[in-house]
């Protein structure tokens, strides 16, 4: 709309031209004189709503705490409370740290400002979906009918069932599906591997573990193989020092991802850094950082990278000195002696063995990016120093996603951008190392009797005992139980909503019917919770004592006191497990599980929690990290920020001082010795072969496969900005900032006769969901984008009215364990089926995104 038009419309609407508006004033002025009225001073400056009835911040009690969900960041929240009610939340404004003052926001100790999700926590704590009492299922599983029971009844029910299942089906009967959902802290830790639930079930003696991480298993694998560690990340402030930043599938404007990453990137831009985005979507990160957008077909990233490597090798642009010194298997000269004659990375790229040089033209054919652009980007990357290729997680959530991450590491290494300020080896991105463990940690921390790829549980349950170990990615064991297929009969969810979040929901729903016990521990009802037998209300992090640590970037601790008393009858998860331990195994189990607690911990936990935390601070944080702040001062301030003398850069020590990488060879292993020596893949947790050098491998579904005749769209499901996975989906404030909608390109929409706001059904052979469509030029044709985490809401035919993409995803993980969330073909059409944006129609009826097309 032109300004002129806006203006005219307005004048018409108001029936008021600029001139007449002024005239009114003037005429009024004249009337004063004519009527002889006295001009009254009426502008009384009081009683405006900000003063009343809302108390001002300074009239309230201020308590520093933090957010606590599993998003990739961790920021400060400041609760302003009146008695036991949080009236509002603010965030870090520089006042709380040592030597702080209002507005202090230095580059070394920036403010830890919370994002929109963190700012909506009040809606989560005080939501209608809050679980306040233990509940037991009374209808069919999944029907959503529960009745309130006492804690005593609930815990007796669970403990009896646990004992029965273990006695009947053995040590693999209970599946641990805890995750970092809403409980992440140093004491109350819900986590997949070494969380409170894992320790509890392991000690109890019945636990099947879920080992693959939904978000980033591809890069975890890649970094372990390549660098020997997952701590491949730089601190956020290092990003201010790049001259070129390639955001590969990375959208920090949505995910934020660590401390102040996005802000330091702005600084880089102001210093002249050039940005490139490789992504099927022109994201808000592309616009904010003014990036060169290279749209790419989903799942074909490794091919494009191979094309870049070809250009670099054939033009001799690689940093040969760096390669010779630090890298194994990049070329013939860097292969280990024992592997002589095996294919190295250069061989693969030039096609020495397979007769297929991975030229930019070859890559163009696969990934849809013009060969000239591949060349241009390869030259830019090889010739700009320092340059950061940030290989984000999303392109790894694919069939053979690990190849993308391994290929990225090869590019990072061949350009010598590892271990230098402004470069990047990420990857996983885990940077500064925090002291993370205040909970009891001992030989029982991670006991399991079988461990499977996390999204294969339904396959295992439905096909037991006719399951091959490679199908479920069974982890090796050193005893006679190696290879035994777990007989899963029960599930525990702690801080996770995995039924809503794992792949192929329809298959999960089939499998859950076969179980004999489903326990859900959460602070809110979730879609998973509806399928539970028993719901245990868990106190949120505002209602218990803990300390927050950065999720993966940033260097600080934030104190998390008990801001308010636990709501309803909710208890902390540590209280619940401790009480269950006492009920199942008496003092022996109870004391072993929670050594500092006594029998009454279920009712009085403050002193014990304080003791764990104080011990953690005084025996770990202070001595290991040279912290000179006492626990009491920390508690009083609420935050401790480390002041690093230089930005933390992963592998700086290796590059500057020649220390070894943590791999077997001590080098960056582009040729992985570990993988090269595996002979029987079935006996590994991978199950299927993984090449020892990064290679492009055709995924099972993509825009290049013949399957597009039936399902012409490639569906990707990135992390949304307005939820953390499924958490916050019920918050009406956040709902005003977005709609769950499927994004398609305008040309595709024209063909299908769709316009923004139309309701479509999205389907493939695995399932169907219903959502509104968003038509834009910012998305690659042939690609459809639907954000993960919407709360499933099934109609009588099993169609999801909420628009959860995991109705369509396939529960077939990549060999290395990556979830193939983004390897999905689908079709789309206009529909009369009902879309329901949320369970609560009232709360979601005003969803309205301010968005204008020009």
């Amino acid at each position: 709309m032109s300004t002129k038009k806006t203006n005219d419309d307005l004048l018409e609407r108001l029936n008021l031209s600029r001139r007449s508006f002024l005239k009114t004033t003037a005429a009024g002025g004249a009337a004063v004189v004519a009527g002889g009225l006295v001009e009254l001073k009426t502008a009384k400056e009081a009683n405006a709503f900000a003063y009343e009835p809302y108390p001002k911040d300074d009239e309230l009690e201020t308590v520093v705490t933090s957010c606590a969900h599993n998003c990739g960041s961790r920021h400060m929240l400041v609760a302003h409370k009146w008695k036991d009610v949080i009236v509002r939340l603010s965030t870090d404004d520089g006042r709380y740290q040592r030597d702080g003052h209002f507005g202090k926001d230095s580059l070394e100790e920036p403010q830890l400002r919370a994002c929109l999700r963190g700012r909506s926590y009040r809606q989560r704590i005080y939501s209608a979906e809050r679980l306040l009492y233990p509940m037991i299922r009374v209808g069919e599983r999944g029907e959503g009918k529960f009745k309130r029971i006492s804690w005593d009844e609930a815990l007796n029910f669970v403990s009896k069932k646990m004992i029965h299942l273990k006695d009947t089906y053995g040590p693999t009967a209970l599946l641990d599906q805890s995750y970092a959902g809403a409980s992440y802290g140093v004491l109350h830790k819900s986590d997949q591997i070494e969380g409170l639930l894992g320790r509890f079930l392991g000690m109890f003696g019945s636990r099947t573990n879920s080992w693959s991480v939904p978000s980033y298993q591809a890069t975890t694998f890649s970094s372990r193989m390549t660098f020997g560690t997952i701590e491949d990340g730089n601190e956020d402030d290092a990003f201010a020092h790049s001259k070129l930043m390639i955001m590969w599938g990375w959208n920090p404007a949505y995910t934020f991802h660590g401390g102040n990453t996005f802000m330091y990137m702005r600084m880089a831009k102001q210093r002249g850094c050039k940005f490139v985005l490789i992504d099927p979507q022109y994201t808000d990160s592309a616009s904010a950082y003014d990036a060169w957008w290279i749209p790419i077909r989903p799942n074909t990233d490794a091919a494009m990278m191979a094309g870049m490597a070809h250009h670099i090798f054939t033009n001799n642009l690689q940093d040969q000195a760096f390669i010779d010194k630090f890298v194994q298997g990049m070329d013939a000269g860097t292969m280990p002696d024992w592997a002589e004659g095996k294919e190295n990375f250069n061989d693969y790229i030039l096609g020495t063995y397979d007769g297929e040089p991975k030229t930019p033209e070859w890559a163009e054919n696969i990934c849809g990016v013009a060969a000239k652009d591949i060349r241009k980007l390869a030259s830019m990357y090889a010739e700009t120093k320092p340059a950061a290729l940030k290989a984000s997680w999303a392109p790894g959530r694919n069939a053979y996603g690990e190849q993308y991450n391994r290929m990225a590491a090869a590019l990072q290494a061949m350009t010598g951008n590892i271990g230098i300020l402004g470069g990047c080896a990420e990857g996983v991105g885990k940077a500064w190392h925090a002291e993370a463990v205040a909970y009891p940690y001992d030989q029982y921390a991670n006991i399991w009797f079988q461990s499977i790829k996390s999204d294969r549980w339904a396959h295992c349950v439905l096909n037991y005992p006719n399951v091959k170990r490679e199908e479920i990615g069974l982890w090796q064991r050193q005893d006679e139980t190696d290879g035994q297929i777990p007989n899963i009969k029960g599930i525990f969810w702690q801080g996770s909503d995995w039924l809503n979040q794992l792949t192929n929901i329809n298959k999960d729903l089939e499998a859950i019917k076969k179980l004999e016990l489903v326990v859900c521990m959460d602070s809110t009802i979730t879609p998973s919770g509806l399928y539970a037998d028993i719901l245990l209300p868990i106190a949120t992090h505002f209602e218990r004592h803990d300390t927050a640590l950065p999720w993966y970037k940033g260097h600080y601790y934030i104190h998390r006191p008990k801001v308010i008393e636990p709501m309803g009858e909710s208890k902390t998860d540590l209280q619940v497990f401790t009480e269950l331990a006492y009920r199942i195994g008496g003092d022996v189990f109870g004391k072993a599980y929670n050594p500092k607690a006594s029998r009454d911990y279920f009712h009085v936990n403050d002193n014990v929690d304080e003791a764990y935390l104080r011990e953690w601070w005084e025996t770990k944080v202070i001595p290991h990290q040279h912290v000179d702040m006492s626990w009491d001062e920390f508690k009083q301030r609420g935050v401790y920020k480390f002041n690093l003398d230089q930005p933390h850069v992963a592998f700086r020590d290796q590059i500057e001082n020649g220390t070894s990488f943590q791999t077997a060879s001590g080098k960056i292993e582009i040729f992985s010795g570990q993988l090269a020596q595996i002979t029987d893949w079935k006996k590994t947790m991978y199950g299927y072969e993984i090449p020892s050098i990064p290679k492009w491998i055709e995924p099972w579904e993509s825009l290049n496969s013949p399957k597009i005749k039936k399902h012409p769209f490639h569906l990707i499901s990135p992390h949304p900005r307005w939820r953390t996975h499924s958490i916050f989906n019920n918050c009406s404030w956040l709902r005003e900032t977005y709609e769950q909608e499927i994004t398609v390109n305008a040309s595709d929409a024209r063909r299908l006769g769709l316009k923004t706001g139309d309701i479509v059904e999205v389907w493939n052979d695995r399932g169907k969901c219903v959502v509104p469509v968003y038509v834009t030029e910012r998305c690659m044709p042939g690609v459809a984008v639907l954000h993960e985490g919407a709360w499933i809401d099934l109609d009588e035919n099993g169609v999801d009215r909420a628009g959860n993409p995991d109705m369509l995803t396939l529960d077939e993980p990549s060999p290395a364990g990556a979830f193939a969330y983004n390897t999905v073909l689908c079709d789309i059409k206009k529909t009369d089926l009902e879309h329901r944006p949320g369970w609560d129609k009232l709360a979601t009826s005003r969803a309205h995104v301010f968005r204008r097309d020009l």
Partner: protein
Amino acid sequence: MSETKDKAKIKEAVKRVKRETYTPVKPDTQLGFVHNNVDCIGCRACEIACKDKNGLMPGPRFRRVQYIEGGTYPNVYAYKVNMSCNHCAEPACLPTCPTGAIFKRKADGIVDIDSTLCIGCRRCEAACPFGAPQFDPADNIVKKCNMCVDEIEAGRKPYCVMACMMRVLDIGQIDSIWDGELETVAVGPNDEIVRQVKNMANIELTKPSIGFVPHSKGKVK
């Protein structure tokens, strides 16, 4: 708000307004907002902070981040225009109010609504060219951004400004914003400031107290 209205007081106010002239208040100093349309990532943390600060239910939104996008695949662009109330020099909302509930503060030029006088007639909502006044069905009155006067008076800055993760939203003395003198990280070293961008009403209507770092596609010639 929720307290019962004093009908007599409102009648008195209406009478007074009828007799009164409207001369825009000339504030001693005028505060205003500055927003960087380019560097804003559109996260809407500012919006949520505002809703929490003001205890708003779903519906009314004092601060609104507009997503602008254009171009044709693959040559596209996008930027954000973020506005709340502009605390205009010549507020269009003010003279439309039949009870005189809307007032402009002499000290800092903030335009505020006296909630005890607002009868929820929504005339200001229609008059404001920027969509700032928001009807709150919960209280049956119109509310809008008051620049968090309570925070300003406490020596701090508004909630939205302090929420901005990118530090691209700020307040200051409006002349210093317009002439680039204000010390703020919202404006980068090479950024220019404009008063008018596309996607907003003509500033001549009310002379809003706001400055923008415009996107190249959002500039007005």
